[in-house]
């Protein structure tokens, strides 16, 4: 009863969107505004590294990077279809959006699995 991949892609879209909705604002506020402007102290390097080494943190960051990228891919695909009426370019759009999401996922997996000292 497999109807193509759309149900899977939609599930990735909704979990990614939910993760982004709950966690991205605080993270972007800290990393992009509060730390640079000196409102709060960023974590010291040894603390950040200690956090990152922990497998749970690595899983957390993997999900935080990968799933929202799939959220963007699915949503942007339909935005292009409806906003620019370029549904006839569907193959190009699908390859571009999910390709970028896949690339980001692989990069995150590689970084979090192999590069953490």
């Amino acid at each position, binding site marked *: 009863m497999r109807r193509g991949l759309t149900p899977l892609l939609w599930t990735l879209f*909704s979990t*990614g*969107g*939910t993760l*982004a*909705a*709950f*966690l*991205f*604002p*605080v*993270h*972007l*506020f*800290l*990393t*992009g*505004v509060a*730390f*640079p*402007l000196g409102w*709060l*102290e*960023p*974590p*010291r*390097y*040894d*603390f*950040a*590294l*200690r*956090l*990152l080494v922990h497998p749970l943190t690595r899983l957390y*960051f993997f999900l*935080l*990077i*990968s799933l*929202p*990228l799939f*959220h*963007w891919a699915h*949503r*942007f695909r*339909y*935005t292009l279809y*409806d*906003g*620019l*009426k370029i549904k006839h370019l569907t193959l190009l759009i699908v390859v571009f959006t999910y390709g*970028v999401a896949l690339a*980001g996922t692989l*990069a*995150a997996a590689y*970084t*979090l699995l192999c*590069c*953490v*000292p």
Partner: protein
Amino acid sequence: MSEPVRYTLYHPKWYRRPVSVWWWLQSWRYAKFVLRELTSLSVAYFAVLALWKVRAITRGPEAYAAFLARLQSPLWVALNALALIFLLYHTITWLNLAPKAMVVRLGGKRVPDRVIQAVNYLLWAAVSAAALWVLERG
């Protein structure tokens, strides 16, 4: 009007109005919808930023310090502030629309949308506070 008669046999010629590619500019409601959809770009942006940050940490203390320093430039702060505004719009619209997809029934009656929205916002506050606490411990 000296147009030829617009009938096929027994059937009047229907007029199909073309849908312009600028349909979403024709009303504020449609424009708000497209703006909401475009917030996905800010989501992708932060995912990439997070990946960049993680890579900086794996490369050592100098890379991490360089990353933090680079984000201090006014251009980056402005970009991140703009992305934050879009991200907040994503969060607010997402949390507000969540009750439509999830029907929660308690005691035979449907839980009202407002309650689910309130729970969502409380959860958002709690999760944000938790993240803040973890990151500020070092």
